[in-house]
C-alpha cells in the first residue's frame, strides 16, 4: 500500500500553564509563588491521511484541533508520539518539507501591513524559490479565481477583512503546496465570501490533488467539502470516518416527517414517538432508530397521512450531541 501523506501515532502535546488568582492581590501573589498545571491539549491521538484526501477536523473550541495542526506544521514540539508529513518530521523544519505545505489561519496575517499584498507575494516567491513564470501563472490564476486582481497594489491595511483573507490565501498558496492545513479559513467572512472560499478549496483540492485538512466552526464548510471527518474533543479523537456514517454511529433516532389531511390531536401521537415540531398538520417526530419502519407503518394505518418520509437527523444536531457527551 502507498505510504500515507500524513501519519500520526500516539501524539501527545501538553502545555504547562500557571494559574493566577483573580485581582491585583492575585497578581502580587503570583510574583512569589505560582501554581502550575498541565493542559492536555492533545492526548494520545492517531490517524493517517492519504494523498488527495480532504479531511475535516471538527470539535468545539479548545478541542485540540489547532494544536494538532501546529504540530503537523512543525511549530510545536510534540510532548511524545510519532508524526510524519510527506515522510518528514515536521519539527525539524527542513526547507524541503516547508516548500511542500502551507498553514493558513483565519485569524492571523502574514502580509506586510504597510505595503501592498503584491510586495509580500514577491517576498514569498523569493523565500520559496518559485520560478518567475510559475509565479506569474499562479498569481494570475488564484487572484482571478478569488476576484482580487485590482486590489493587489493597495496597502494591506486599507483592505477589508474578506479581501485580506483572500490575499492571505494567495500568499500561502504561491508555492503550490501539496499539503494544506486550513484553520478556520472562513471565519468572519460574509456568506458570499464564504461560498467563494469553499468553492476555491474544493477546486484547489481537485486540480492540484492536494491533501487538505480543514477545521471549521461552520458545519456548512465541512458538509460541503469533506467526505471524511475526524471529530476531536478534549484532546482525544471521538470519531474518524465518513461524515455520513457519523449519523448512524451516534444518532440513536431517526426523524419521521409527516403531513396529515386534517388537524390531529397531538396527544394521540405520543405513543408513536417524541414530537419535535408541530405546525397544525405537519409534524416532526423522533423515533428510535430500529423501530422506525414499524412506527411509520403504525402512523399510516391509524392516521389520515398525506405524505411521510423517514430521515436521518441533521448532522449539526448529531455533532452537537456528540460534543455534549451524550447520545442523541
Amino acid at each position, binding site marked *: 500500500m502507498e505510504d500515507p501523506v500524513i501519519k500520526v501515532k500516539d501524539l501527545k502535546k501538553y*502545555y504547562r500553564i500557571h494559574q493566577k488568582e483573580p485581582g491585583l492581590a492575585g497578581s502580587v501573589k503570583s510574583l512569589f509563588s505560582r501554581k502550575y498545571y498541565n493542559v492536555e491539549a492533545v492526548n494520545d491521538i492517531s490517524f493517517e491521511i492519504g494523498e488527495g484526501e480532504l479531511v475535516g477536523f471538527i470539535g468545539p473550541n479548545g478541542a485540540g484541533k*489547532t494544536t494538532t495542526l*501546529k504540530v503537523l*506544521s*512543525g*511549530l*510545536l*514540539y510534540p510532548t511524545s508520539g510519532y508524526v510524519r508529513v510527506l515522510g518528514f518530521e515536521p519539527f525539524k*523544519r527542513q*526547507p524541503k518539507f*516547508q*516548500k511542500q505545505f*502551507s*498553514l493558513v*489561519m483565519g*485569524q*492571523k496575517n*502574514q502580509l*506586510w501591513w*504597510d*505595503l501592498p499584498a503584491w*510586495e*509580500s507575494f*514577491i*517576498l*514569498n516567491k*523569493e*523565500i*520559496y*524559490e518559485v520560478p518567475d513564470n510559475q509565479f506569474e501563472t499562479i498569481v494570475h490564476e488564484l487572484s482571478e479565481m478569488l476576484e482580487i486582481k485590482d486590489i493587489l497594489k493597495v496597502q494591506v491595511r486599507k483592505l477589508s477583512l474578506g479581501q485580506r483573507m483572500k490575499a492571505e490565501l494567495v500568499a500561502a498558496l504561491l508555492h503550490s503546496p501539496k499539503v494544506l492545513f486550513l484553520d478556520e479559513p472562513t471565519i468572519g467572512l460574509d456568506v458570499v465570501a464564504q461560498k467563494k472560499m469553499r468553492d476555491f478549496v474544493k477546486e484547489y483540492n481537485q486540480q492540484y490533488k492536494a491533501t487538505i485538512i480543514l477545521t471549521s466552526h461552520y458545519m456548512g464548510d465541512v458538509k460541503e467539502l469533506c467526505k471524511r471527518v475526524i471529530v476531536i474533543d478534549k484532546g482525544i479523537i471521538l470519531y474518524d470516518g465518513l461524515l455520513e456514517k457519523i449519523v448512524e454511529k451516534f444518532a440513536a433516532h431517526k426523524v419521521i416527517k409527516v403531513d396529515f389531511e386534517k388537524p390531529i390531536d397531538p396527544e394521540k401521537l405520543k405513543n408513536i414517538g417524541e414530537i419535535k415540531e408541530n405546525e397544525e398538520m405537519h409534524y416532526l417526530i423522533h423515533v428510535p432508530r430500529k423501530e422506525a419502519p414499524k412506527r411509520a407503518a403504525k402512523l399510516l394505518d391509524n392516521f389520515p397521512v398525506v405524505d411521510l418520509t423517514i430521515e436521518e437527523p441533521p448532522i449539526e444536531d448529531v455533532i452537537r450531541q456528540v460534543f455534549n457527551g451524550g447520545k442523541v
Partner: protein
Amino acid sequence: MHKYIKVFNVSWQNEFTYRLNFILWRIRNLLRFLMTYFLWSGIFIGQRQIFGYSQEQIITYVFLVLIVQTFVTSAPSQDNIGGEIANGDLSNYLLKPVSYIKYWFTRDLASKLFNLFFAVFEITLLWLIFRPAVFFPAQVLSIAGFFLSVTAAVFINYFLSLVARFVTFWTPENTWGIAFVVLVLIEILGGGIFPLDVLPKPAFFALQLTPFPYLVYFPIAIFVGKVTGLYLIQVLLQSYVWVFMLYWVMMKIWQVGLKVYGSEGR
C-alpha cells in the same frame, strides 16, 4: 541569497512608510550628539589634554559615536523579536524555508544602511557648521582595525540582543524586562557617552571582560589611535571570540526555546 536581498528591499520600502518616526529618531540622535559635543568642548577650555586625549581626538570620538552607534546599535529587530515570540507571529517565519535569525539580521542591516546614509549627511553638515579640528589616523592599520572591529560589533550587538529577547520564550508576559537592562548596559557600558578608558583602571579592566566595550568604545578607540600594535591585535581577537561565543549561546537558547514555544494567539 535571493530571498534575503528581497527582504532587504522590502525593509527599505517599509522604512519609507514610517517617515515621521524616522525623522524623530534622527533628531534624537542629533540632540545626543550636540549634548556630548558641547560638554566636551566645555571641558577642553584652557586644557590641551584630558585623560590622555587631545581635543581633536575627543571631538573625533564624539563624531564617530554618531556613526558607529547608528551602525552598530540601531536595529529594528530589538523592537520586534520579543513581541513576535510573545504573540505568536514568530510562527509565520517558522512555517517557511527562511531563517528567522538571518531574516532579522537582514532587516537590521537594511535599517543600519538607511540610517548610516543620513548619519553621514548629518555629520558633514555639523562639521561644516562647527568646523572643529578632527583627528585622522596616521596608520592604515588603524583604519583597517576600525572596520574589522565595527563588523565584530554589529554581530556582538545582534547576538547579545537576541539572547535578551529569547528570554520571552519562557516568560511571554514580560518581553521587556531583561531586554531593557541589556539595552541600558549597551548604551552606558558600550562607550557611547564617554570613552571608557577615562574610568579607573580596575573598572576599565573589568569592563573588558564583558562584551560591551567592543560595541562602540573599541572601534573608535582604534580609529583615534588609542589602541595600536599588539594591543590592537589582542582587542580584535577578543572581539571575535565574543562574536563566536555569543553566537553559540544564542543558538543554544534558540533551539531550546523553540521546544517550549507555544505559538499562542494563532
